[in-house]
Structure formats: structure tokens, C-alpha cells
């Protein structure tokens, strides 16, 4: 069994119109090498599901997105993702804006093969107006409470970034917070991970890291070795987000041909020279992980 793939093979397995979930949280642990490979491809009409960071803005700017499903889209130190904001204000992209917890429940329902999960979250707010397809369900027990039936968010593919992996599909994800990567993996028909390090056998290389395994390998379809592949987002515990790069990205969002310039400067030339184009591998490895 060998699940190793390259970026091109993963993107070749994706189809127009698919629903694609992206792991991580804001500007943290995004599989950006894979996102850039999508940006360079012909894929279109995607539904993208995420606790969003720069991947959402970039996919919107490149015209890849038909519909967004998100709890938020933020670069944290730049509170509103600049290209996402631009795309939303221009109209033309359908948006299913959710409470962060509803996104959790929708992914969990899909992973458990349920049609919905009941919750109070969303009731009384504009979430139900933004998502007019949401229905309520009445408790069959004595309480008779009416609850929101959060529909399952089934994914065709989930894209995640991990710290290390082996060719069997075993993964370990360092960092203080697993976020909801495991829910994305389980909600998806196929899960593809990019990894900082590919090891021969994770049980032999890092047995002490087993608790950092967020989901079992049977959920993983493909493993791509992509060191520094989360740049410009944080990859715990290796490097922090690239604030200077993201500031430049945000500034370009205010300019007429800003996205084109970003794409041509950093993305178009392929992944091979990417680290050099953004200042070199050494520089990325030295980026501190921000604290607050």
C-alpha cells in the first residue's frame, strides 16, 4: 500500500463542481501548496467549505468558487480576508454563512452518515435567513422542543496539512489545537493530506507522537510530501504565518490587477521555486509562530 501522490495527481482527481473542504483555522495549517496547484489548474465551480483563511480569498480571486460554506474567513491579524471581502461585495459567489458550531455539526453529521444533527444554534438569528434550506425538527420526547436540524455537509474531498505522514496514510499533526481537521477527513469521500515530512514508517519514526494522530489512515486517500507547504499560513510547530507576505497580499487586494500580480509573482511559476520566490526556505523556517 502506497498512498504517496504528487500535487498534480491530487488536483487531477478533483472535478469541476465538487464540494471541497479545507482543514486548518484562519491563517493556520492550510494545505496551501495544494491550493496553489488548484489555482494553476482549470478546476472551476467549486463549493468550498472551511474555517477560512487565505485559501478562500485566493480561490475566490482566481474564479474557482461557485459557493462558499464557512464559519468565518479571516487572516486574524488582518481581521477580514481581503479577497474574500472583495468577492462577497461584488456578489456572484453564493455564500452559506454558518455559526462556527453549525459547521462543526454539519461535518460531524456527514462523518457519521446522518442526515442532520439537532441543535439550538442558529435559531433566532439570521443564520436561518441566510440559509433558507434549513429546517427544524421537534424532539420526540416529553420536552417536545423544536430544534434546528443542521444538515450534513458531505464533502467530495478534504484537503489537510499535517506535520508528518507515512505512505500508508498515517498522520501526525503537531500544535496546540487539532481544530476540526478530523471532522473534515471523516466527512469526505476522499481525504488528501500535504505533509511537512514524509517518513518511511510513522510507527518506527515517531511512536511517541501517536496521540497527535487526529484520524485513522483508512480515511486518507493520498499523501503529498510538501515541506513548507502551509506557507503563508502557520504550520505548528514548524513555522508561523508570514505576516509580511500576507500584508502584501492584502494590499494587492485594493489594486485593480492585484490578484493577477500576486498570481504571476508567486503562484504561476509552480511549486518548485515557490519558497525562493517568497524569500527562501530558511526565511520561512524562521518565521515565528505568533502569540497573543
Amino acid at each position, binding site marked *: 500500500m502506497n498512498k504517496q501522490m504528487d500535487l498534480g495527481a491530487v488536483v487531477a482527481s478533483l472535478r469541476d463542481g465538487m464540494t471541497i473542504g479545507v482543514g486548518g483555522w484562519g491563517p493556520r495549517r492550510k494545505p496551501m501548496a495544494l491550493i496553489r496547484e488548484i489555482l494553476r489548474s482549470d478546476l472551476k465551480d467549486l463549493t468550498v467549505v472551511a474555517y477560512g483563511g487565505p485559501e478562500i480569498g485566493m480561490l475566490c480571486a482566481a474564479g474557482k468558487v461557485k459557493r462558499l460554506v464557512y464559519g468565518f474567513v479571516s487572516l486574524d491579524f488582518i481581521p*477580514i480576508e481581503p479577497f474574500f471581502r472583495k468577492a462577497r*461585495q461584488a456578489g456572484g459567489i453564493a455564500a452559506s454563512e454558518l455559526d462556527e458550531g453549525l459547521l462543526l455539526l454539519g461535518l460531524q453529521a456527514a462523518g457519521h452518515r446522518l442526515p442532520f444533527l439537532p441543535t439550538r*444554534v442558529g435559531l433566532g438569528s439570521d443564520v436561518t435567513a441566510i440559509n433558507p434550506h434549513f429546517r427544524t425538527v421537534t424532539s420526540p420526547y416529553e420536552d417536545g422542543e423544536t430544534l434546528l436540524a443542521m444538515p450534513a455537509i458531505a464533502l467530495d474531498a478534504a484537503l489537510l496539512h499535517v506535520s508528518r505522514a507515512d505512505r500508508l496514510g498515517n498522520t501526525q499533526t503537531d500544535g496546540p489545537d487539532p481544530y476540526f481537521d478530523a471532522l473534515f477527513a471523516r466527512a469526505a469521500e476522499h481525504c488528501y493530506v500535504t505533509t511537512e515530512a514524509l517518513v518511511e514508517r510513522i510507527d518506527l519514526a515517531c511512536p511517541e507522537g501517536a496521540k497527535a494522530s487526529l484520524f485513522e489512515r483508512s480515511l486518507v486517500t493520498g499523501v503529498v510530501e510538501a515541506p513548507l507547504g502551509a506557507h503563508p499560513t502557520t504550520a505548528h510547530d514548524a513555522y508561523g504565518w508570514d505576516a509580511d507576505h500576507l500584508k502584501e497580499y492584502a494590499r494587492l487586494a485594493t489594486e485593480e490587477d492585484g490578484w493577477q500580480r500576486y498570481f504571476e509573482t508567486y503562484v504561476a511559476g509552480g511549486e518548485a521555486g515557490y519558497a525562493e520566490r517568497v524569500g527562501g526556505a530558511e526565511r520561512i523556517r524562521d518565521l515565528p509562530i505568533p502569540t497573543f
Partner: protein
Amino acid sequence: MTETTDFTLAELAICAAAEAWRGGGEVLATGIGPVPRLAAGLAKLTFAPEILMTDGEAFLVEEPVPLGPRNGDRPRPSGWMPYHRVFDATWCGRRHAMVTPVQLDRWGQANIAALGPELDRPKVQLLGVRGFPGNSISHRNSMFLPAHSPRAFVAGEVDVVASVGFSDRRWPRGVAKLPVDIGIVVTDLCVMDFNGPDHAARVVSLHPGVRFAQVQKATGFPLLEADTCTTTPVPDAEQLAIIRRLDPTGIRASVIKGNPPGVRRAA
């Protein structure tokens, strides 16, 4: 208690906001933004040692973590609070958050999502609803708004109801409204709550040098002046020392426009 006049309005607001957590028990105190976070830290280090706080990332700490660069200091975790557990704490109700909405209306409904009348094409895209819908029907929430004006305290309804308030309008027909628990609303002018008749907004204390009429003028909806309305207490030396220790680089100075002094000169 030693009084001092050498304090900023932000420091006064931090002390007022800390009061949100008085007597609330062993809840997860989430302060989003510098003033709410410093307020929670101040509460924990003075009258509410029982509250739970995080390091701003994923660990619980018994000693509030100062804002800004840590210069190698590592917080000592007393527990783990990754986001999935934050949702557990939220939905079980043992949490009290303080957040900063962009708009707040007379029904206590709050918006951080977007501005403009069209939900599918916002005039200004803001943060999205984030955790506001779930927070608002799960546990007590307080708010801090650094610029009290009719733009923030809107005349009609907020453009997007992210935080549920006391209005019936968005509840599905036949569904019993869930209880909403709003704590205090601290601004650069006053402290308010929604404990008037039928959850009407009330001013419960005016910051030094501020008159009720001035607050009303800066608010897009009618306010009540609580019978018990007082002057917001000024910080004492201990509180100021704690605030300065928790914010050594002075991030709080950037929160309220112009970083005015805590006691306004008579207008």
C-alpha cells in the same frame, strides 16, 4: 482604596468591564479583543479567581497571560481548551463571553457579520456571524463597544442578526423563544444593560464627566436611565497596576480613539 486621577478611559472601561464576571461562578471567561481580555484578567486577579481563562490559544491558565510578545515566557497550562472543547463549554452553558459587535440594537441583537440590506451581497463584508448565534442562546454574553454612536447603536434592527436578542421576529412560527442572557454593555460613555421593562436598554452608570443626555444623543434608540444610575467607579491603584502588568506594551492605548483620559473635562 486609593483613588488616582492618572488613568485613561480605556483603563476605566477595563475596570467596568471586569464587573461582568462578578458572582458568575466557575465559567469560561472569553474576552475577545484587548479591553475584554484585560477585563477578564483583572476580574480573575481581583474578585473572581474562580473563572477559567485561556492563553488566547488552546490552553487554560490560572495566571492571565499578558498581551503582546512573550519574550520567551511560556504560559503554564492548567488544562486544555482547544476549539472543539470551547464549543462543548459553550453549549453546556458554562461560559460568559465579552465581545465587540459592530452594531447593536434596542432588542440586544448584535451584528459582526456584514453591513447593508442584502444578505447575499453585503455592502461591507465583516467577520461573518462566527460563534455569535450559538453563544447568544447558550450562555451569558457581555459587550464592549469603544465608540458609542448611532452607527453602532442603531435606530432600527441590526443589518444581520448574528447575536440573538429579545426580538421575536426571527423565531420560526410556533417555536418557543430561547432565553437570552445579556450581561453588561460597556462603552466609552457608560455602562448599560437590558434589564429595563420588557428588556429595555438602560444606562446603569455614566463614566465620569458624561451626562445621560449625551449618551442618549449618541444612541439610535431610546434609553432609560436606571433609578440606581451612578458614576462608573474610577480605577484604584491596585487595578491600574494589574492592568499595566497584563498589558506591558500599552496595546489598550489604541482601543479608544485618541486614548482620552478617564475623567472628561466638562463639555
